[in-house]
Structures are given as structure tokens and as C-alpha cells.
């Protein structure tokens, strides 16, 4: 019976020939697989980034609104005008606050999902976290405008619960309060936190899931309290996830231009400034210079994170 089967099987066509080709030249397959995405990344993504950078070194003729295509640093100098600096600082503070807010809210949820949720409850968790992402972003933001409005659900609920005093006290805090939640920086913050929360929970949960249960037991075994375990073991090990999540929340907040248009005080954020400068004012150089700001901030942020050892557990 064994004599019937040949030692070398016959080639069955193109698929076998290709398999043989890739087997003899393993790098060829890699090249075939990587070329399209690298082209995409290199030409489309980096290319547009380079074009953006180039634009930021042009300036605009203020009256006609036409771009003067001559190299100048004038546009960057404009960033340091008081009102533009305000925009940058306002955006930075909001992004930081949103990131911290998201992290604080996301951690218990992610921790529960990573440590305790099993089977059905895990599915419920994923569904619960992802569900808000499925509905239109605009619909969510408009819904929040109504929820937060002066004559909206929260005001109504606060009145019903006899908490109007509390709401008014919060709204009277200078800097974050306002006439109503919907027209206050606090409202903008709440909507940002809501919209970007899933982007914090998911990487956090993935990072926490990778922390073996025995690590936590070892910590307790060696005498650590829960708080000590959290500080010295869980947090450092979950840090890459927190950083990944914060990159999302931070950069998404910095780039967003819809939410501050609909909820808040009308004070500009970088995203809104970029949107208006390039879309409605036609000032592409200043828009580009503004757009470079988040990139620079993110680079600095990542460098600090790396120096602080946030990626050591990777």
C-alpha cells in the first residue's frame, strides 16, 4: 500500500507554486503583505501630515483670505497671541480634565470586567461599553444638549429631588459653572467624558486582563493592603493601558470641534479653531499651525510617560 503513494506530491497549480515561492523566499511574502499598508501610511498619512506642516509655514493675506505661499514663521507667532494662547491652554486643561475624569470612571468598570465578569456578564460589559459607539456621535451630543439644558432633564430631576440648591451651587463656581449645564465648561466636560469613555475603558480592561491574578495574590501574600497592591502592582502593570486610553481621550478631546460648538460657552477649543480657520475663515496656515499643537503636545506627553516608566511593563 505504501508503494502507491509518491514521496513528493505533485504540484496542484498556482497556489502551490506561490507557496513554494514564498517558502524559498520568506521575505517576499512579508514584502507583498506590507507594501500596500506602508504605501498607504507613507503617502496618504505622512504625506498629508507633511502637507499640513508645510501649510503652517505659509501665511494668509488677511483681507482677500488668500494664502501667501512664502516661508514665514509669522503664523506660528500668531499662536502666541493672547486669545490663541487662551485656546491652547483651555484645550489642554479640558483634555487633561477629561482624561483624568475618564480614567477615574473607567478604572472600576475595566477592573470589574477584567477580574470578575465571566461569560454572559462579559458579553453584557462589551455590549454596554460599545453600544454608545454605535449610535451617531451627533445624535448623542444633541441629546446631551437637551439633557443638560436649563429646562432639561437634569434641572428637572434636581428640582424633583430637592437638589436645585446643589446644582445652582455647582453652576455658580467660577471657571466651570455657567447659566446652565449646557452652557458651562462643566457641561462640555461631561459630554466629552461620556463620548470618549469607551476609548479609555477598552485598553484599560485589556491591560488589566493581562495582569495575572497571582500577582495580586502575591502582593497580598507579602503583606500589602489593597491600597498598597493597587498603587505598587495594579497601577504600574495597568499603566500601558491607561496611557493608551489617555492617548485616545487626550487627543480626541484636543481635536474635537463638534461638542464645544453645541455644548459650552462658545469659547474656542483647538479643534473648533482649526475647523473654523480652515473651513470658514479660509486661514489654512493658522489652522495648520493650530493642528500642529496637539501633535507637539502628544509627543511631549509620550516622552514624559516613557521617562516615567509607563511602558516598562510592556
Amino acid at each position, binding site marked *: 500500500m505504501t508503494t502507491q503513494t509518491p514521496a513528493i506530491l505533485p504540484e496542484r497549480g498556482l497556489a502551490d507554486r506561490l507557496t513554494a515561492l514564498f517558502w524559498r523566499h520568506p521575505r517576499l511574502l512579508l514584502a507583498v503583505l506590507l507594501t500596500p499598508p506602508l504605501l498607504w501610511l507613507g503617502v496618504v498619512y505622512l504625506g498629508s501630515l507633511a502637507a499640513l506642516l508645510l501649510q503652517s509655514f505659509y501665511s494668509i493675506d488677511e483681507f*482677500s*483670505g488668500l494664502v501667501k*505661499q512664502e516661508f514665514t514663521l509669522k503664523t506660528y507667532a500668531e499662536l502666541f497671541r493672547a486669545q490663541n494662547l487662551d485656546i491652547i491652554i483651555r484645550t489642554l486643561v479640558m483634555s487633561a480634565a477629561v482624561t483624568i475624569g475618564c480614567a477615574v470612571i473607567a478604572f472600576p468598570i475595566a477592573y470589574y470586567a477584567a477580574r470578575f465578569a465571566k461569560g454572559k456578564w462579559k458579553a453584557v460589559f462589551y455590549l454596554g461599553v460599545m453600544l454608545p459607539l454605535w449610535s451617531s456621535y451627533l445624535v448623542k451630543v444633541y441629546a446631551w444638549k437637551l439633557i443638560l439644558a*436649563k429646562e432639561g432633564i437634569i434641572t428637572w430631576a434636581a428640582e424633583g429631588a430637592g437638589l436645585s440648591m446643589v446644582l445652582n451651587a455647582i453652576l455658580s463656581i467660577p471657571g466651570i459653572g455657567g*447659566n446652565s449645564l449646557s452652557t458651562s465648561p462643566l457641561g462640555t466636560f461631561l459630554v466629552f467624558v461620556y463620548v470618549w469613555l469607551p476609548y479609555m475603558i477598552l485598553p484599560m480592561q485589556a491591560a488589566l486582563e493581562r495582569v495575572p491574578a497571582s500577582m495580586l495574590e502575591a502582593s497580598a501574600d507579602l503583606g500589602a493592603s489593597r491600597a498598597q497592591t493597587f498603587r505598587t502592582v495594579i497601577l504600574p502593570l495597568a499603566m500601558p493601558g491607561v496611557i493608551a486610553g489617555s492617548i485616545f481621550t487626550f487627543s480626541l478631546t484636543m481635536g474635537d470641534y463638534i461638542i464645544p460648538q453645541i455644548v459650552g460657552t462658545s469659547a*474656542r477649543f483647538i479643534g473648533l479653531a482649526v475647523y473654523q480657520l*480652515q*473651513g470658514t475663515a479660509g486661514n489654512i496656515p493658522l489652522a495648520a499651525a493650530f493642528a500642529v499643537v496637539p501633535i507637539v503636545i502628544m509627543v511631549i506627553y509620550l516622552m514624559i510617560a516613557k521617562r516615567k516608566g509607563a511602558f516598562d511593563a510592556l
Partner: protein
Amino acid sequence: MTRRSLKLAATSALALVTGLTPALAQMTEVGPGEGALSIVAWAGYIERGETDPAFDWVTKFEEASGCKVSVKTANTSDEMVALMNEGGFDLVTASGDASLRLIAGDRVQEINTALIPSWGTIDPRLQNAPWYVVDGKHYGVPYMWGPNVLMYNTEVFKEPPTSWNVVFEEMTLGDGQSNKGRVQAYDGPIHIADAAQYLMFHKPELGITSPYELNEDQYKAALDLLRGQRNLVSRYWHDAFIQIDDFKNEGVVASGSWPFQVNLLKAGGAPVASVIPQEGATGWADTTMLHVDSEHPNCAYMWFEHQLSSNLQSDLSVWFGANPSVPAACTDGRGMQTAEGCTANGLDDFDKIRFWTTPVADCSQGEDTCVPYYRWVSDYIGVIGGR
């Protein structure tokens, strides 16, 4: 041509396309239509019966001319300028704060009024208006005009307010509560002109003669007024529908607005009305302008004639709450508008209205004495940011 050539050599492909085409000479005759026409317009300006079947001034034009109309909606004047700078459009319904910028930027071409049979029917006050006529050359055809009215809540204001002070100065309103947090202002730099107009009436010592021509001192006074207004305004409006929502849900009771929002809110049963207070009002007078590189100039000229002679002027003035550029449209029954309707929309207030125009440095006060528009833009961003 040398400037263009230099530019060509120095810059990108985009500039190559736009810079290569020499500025078209004025048209001398209208040939057969090119089959298409693209228009940058304000929302609600170009209706083909899709929003409301009763309002349609496009279908008949397309049938008669064979030019298929496509519309790109813009929300602000700045956006219109940006779109025209980008290119690819034939016409734009530009307001006075955009038109001069388009002319200065060589984005629009001179119009030969002789090729438009109904030109003579245009309101004489508009035929040589400074926001589209430069050096005696016409760069467009008047489309529609209207005032920026003061919209107010009739439950809070038993009597119509007589002054814009309700949105500029803190005060106790008819219902015994402060106006703080209950008024709005327009989220565009041109709102500085509203402040200047208010000062023109209340502080004559500043010597403001036009709200669009402000020297440093006058400009500073206007900004100070707006900084005070910032404390009253919770949120500025730039989107008509968000303002409508704010009047319904956010407790806003007074704001500068357009007849468009007033009409929509009234139609929805909201207790609002509008008025032009004693200080007068700013307003917009829109002009249809033809892009310098338009690919469909014959269709565009056909549209110019259509816009003046058809039901457009009459029905649009009803639809948008504005005034036709052709006064006869109020009375000759070509559309739904009536003489009473035009009066309600402010046809007789023409002299009270100071139309949007782009502030420039060289103004009637002298060369380089007025604050130009780009500073209005950045300073207004500062004011809204609380600076």
C-alpha cells in the same frame, strides 16, 4: 501676468490650475447653456420644492434653460469665501462682508449688466451699492436683503423692546429677573458692527459714522461693550437651528436674529416676536456673484435673469422673511409675497439698516486708519474666550 507666472513657478499644483487661467474678460453675449450650474448659497436660498412643495424656484429654471442646478450650502460668510477660494463653483450668494473680499481676491468676475434684460427692475437703491460695485464695475446681481432683527420672548417682554440695550447691558427684565444668561449674540466677528451701531446712537461723542469703519478708539469702545456682553451671554449662536433650540429649552429670551428663525419659532407656536429697535439694525444684502473661472457662464447669466424676473424674488422673500431686490415682486403677484408682507419684513426700513460690509483699513476716515477685518476675527475670538 508676471506675478502669476512667478506664483506658478513657485507653488503647488493647485495654484497651477487656478493661476493658469487668465481672468476672463467681461462676457459680451450669452450663448447656449452648458447644462449645469453650481451655486454656493445660504441655507434656504435655493429651494426646489423639496422642503415645502409650495416653495420652488429651481425646477422651472432647469426646464427652461437645461442647466442642472446643484447647491453647496454655507453657514457663514467666511465659509463662502473659503469655498470660492477653493474653486469649482459658478455662483455664490455673498453677503456684504464677503463680497468685497471676493472681489479683492480676484475670485469673481465683472458682470455685463447689459446682458441681463431685467436689470432695470432692480431697486435703484441697490443698483450701485458699494458692497459689490467697485470702480464703477458691477461684480454681481443683487439677490435678497433683510435686517438682523431683535428677537424676543413675548411672555417676558409685554411691550416690544425699544433698544438693543437688552442684549448689551445687564438689566432686570419684565419678569423681574436679570437678563444675565438669557440673551444671545451672533458668533461671528461682524457682530462687532452691532456693538458699534449701538454706540453710534448712545455715545455720539465717539464720532462713529459707520459701524463698519472704526478707528482704534471706536473699535476699542465696541470691544469693551462686547466684553461686558460676554458676561450676559451663556452661549453665542452661529447655527440657526441651535438658536431655535436655545429659545425653546435654554431659557433664552432675547437675541439678535434673522427673520428666518423668528418665522420658524412662530410657526412652532413659540411666544416670540421681532423688532428693529431705535438704534436701527445691521442687515445683509446678498449678491449673486460669478466665479472668475466659472465653467458655466451662460447658465449663470440665465440664472441672473431668472433670479430677477421669475417667482424667485417673491417666494423667497416669503420663505426667508427677507426683502426682494426687485420691489415689483412685492406687488405684481408673480409669487406669494404681498405689499403688507414686504412691509413686515422691513422693506420700508432700508434706511435704518446698515448693511454688512467688509471692514478695511483704508476707509472714509482716511488711509490706514480703520481696523481691518482680520483683526475683527481674532479679537472677537478673544472676546468670546473671555479676554
